[in-house]
């Protein structure tokens, strides 16, 4: 059994807002659902499967199904942090392949910006769990967790702050063309390394933006997708994997992408060098570097050299990445970047990215998400998409 080619992404939507002071989270979920359905040319009555992560308001998917007035026969609220929505694409394809639903709606929304959340520097606890007493009093926050991963990568492989900075530089080159991006100014390596130190060795410009909004994805059967007036984007392969502290055999130099990536490539029957465009989760610059290595775009430890000198800039480098500006410059709604990764990959495959960053004749793309913290435990999700 495989999901290869058995489902298509027929609709995508990224909410244009970046600060939603006057909207509820449920309202944002409904707005992005409406946007994606309109993009696909489908109606709410066509939706018979609903997917959200554990952060959606209420109990799993049921409050959102009720709020939106959906009538579904399949729900899935798989929670793997920011990677959830990449995982949901694979799960939706599975459900469609098994005949459990025909039109799957995936939504994400949130308003951390409007709520004044200190996403990167304030401690966050996900449940009163048995592992927390051994971590929480030490003050783990998002930035120092990713900082520890970056620090070890530098120690072990000689990666430099300047190499990490190139990731931000590349995405800023893309973001200048995105009118909705939070940060549209093109930056230099010097700008990044001279920005204030947040948590060693990560500077402010190594960190993603905090933004409100969200996005939605419609996954459907190929027969339905073919009946719609949109380019056909097929789901070719998917992989998912959690990674943690390995019972104390801690290794922060790699991510779960070492498992989710090969699974997705094997299912799709392609290899990293076939990929023309990649959306790579960019909570921090180090996140991108490690995932590129782990997905096999370069050898382990060579990520620093791979990302340097504009190699991720569309039209300049060998692997265009995050042509919307990514989470670093464009949007990181609800502190979860997985959904927008899929959206930009679909734009590229449809030829609907901004002309300045559109990859010529883009037929094969990858979207990858990381959720949780690479400093402790995280989920990874990879999908490979192809335009017919």
């Amino acid at each position, binding site marked *: 059994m495989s999901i290869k080619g058995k489902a298509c992404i027929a609709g995508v939507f990224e909410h244009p807002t970046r600060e939603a002071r006057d909207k509820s989270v449920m309202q944002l979920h409904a707005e992005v659902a409406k946007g994606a359905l309109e993009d696909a040319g489908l109606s709410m009555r066509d939706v018979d499967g609903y997917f959200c992560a554990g952060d959606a308001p209420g109990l799993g998917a049921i409050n959102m199904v009720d709020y939106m007035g959906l009538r579904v026969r399949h729900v899935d609220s798989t929670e793997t942090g920011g990677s959830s929505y990449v995982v949901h694409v694979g799960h939706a394809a599975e459900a469609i392949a098994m005949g459990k639903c025909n039109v799957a709606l995936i939504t994400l929304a949130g308003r951390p910006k409007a709520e004044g959340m200190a996403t990167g*520097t304030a401690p966050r606890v996900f449940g009163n769990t048995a592992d927390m*007493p051994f971590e929480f*009093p030490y*003050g783990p926050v998002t930035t120092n*967790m990713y900082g*520890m991963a970056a*620090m*070890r990568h530098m120690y072990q492989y000689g990666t430099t702050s300047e190499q990490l900075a190139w990731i931000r530089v590349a995405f800023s080159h893309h973001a200048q063309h995105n009118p909705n991006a939070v940060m549209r100014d093109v930056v230099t390596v010097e700008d990044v390394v001279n920005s204030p130190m947040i948590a*060693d060795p990560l500077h402010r410009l190594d960190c993603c933006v905090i933004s409100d909004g969200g996005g939605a994805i419609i996954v459907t059967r190929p027969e339905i997708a073919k009946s719609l007036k949109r380019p056909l984007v097929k789901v070719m392969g998917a992989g998912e994997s959690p990674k943690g502290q390995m*019972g104390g055999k801690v290794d922060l130099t790699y991510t779960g992408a070492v498992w989710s990536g090969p699974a997705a490539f094997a299912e799709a029957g392609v290899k990293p060098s076939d990929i023309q465009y990649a959306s790579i989760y960019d909570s921090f610059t180090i996140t991108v570097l490690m995932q590129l290595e782990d997905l096999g775009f370069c050898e382990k430890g060579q990520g620093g050299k791979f990302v340097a000198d504009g190699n991720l800039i569309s039209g300049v480098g060998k692997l265009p990445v995050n042509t919307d500006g990514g989470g670093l410059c464009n949007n990181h709604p609800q502190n979860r970047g997985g959904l927008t990764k899929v959206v930009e990959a679909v734009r590229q495959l449809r030829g609907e990215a901004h002309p300045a960053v559109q990859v010529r004749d883009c037929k094969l793309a990858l979207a990858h998400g990381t959720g949780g913290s690479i400093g402790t435990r995280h989920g990874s999700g990879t999908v490979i998409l192809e335009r017919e």
Partner: protein
Amino acid sequence: MTQERKLAAPAVYPETEVYWQAAAKGKLMVKRCRDCGEYHHYPRSICPHCFSDNTEWCEARGTGTIYTYSVLWRTPVPYAIAYVTLDEGVSMMTNIVDCDLKGIRIGQKVRVTFKPTDGGPPMPMFTPD
């Protein structure tokens, strides 16, 4: 550098009560599996390496090496979070304390020290040798 940061008290569950009772006496405990022989951390009743429930508490030597660290500067009282690899072979999340935060290095030898928490048992932290 003095430890000025107020530390949240860890929640004590029956599964790991021994760990915190020992911490109150200045001892660092680690769990070891009697079946596969592997140490693990954080402590569990069932071994995360082989799933045996035949696990035992051992007193650690209290010495180790900094595997990685990060100083959070963007906070009222900057502090260093780290993973220290104990001489027993397992790595644990901790803080590096009583030292110049700018002088911390991966590979440094460190020794355990206990810091009081806000109404709970003390937390094991490490200071450079």
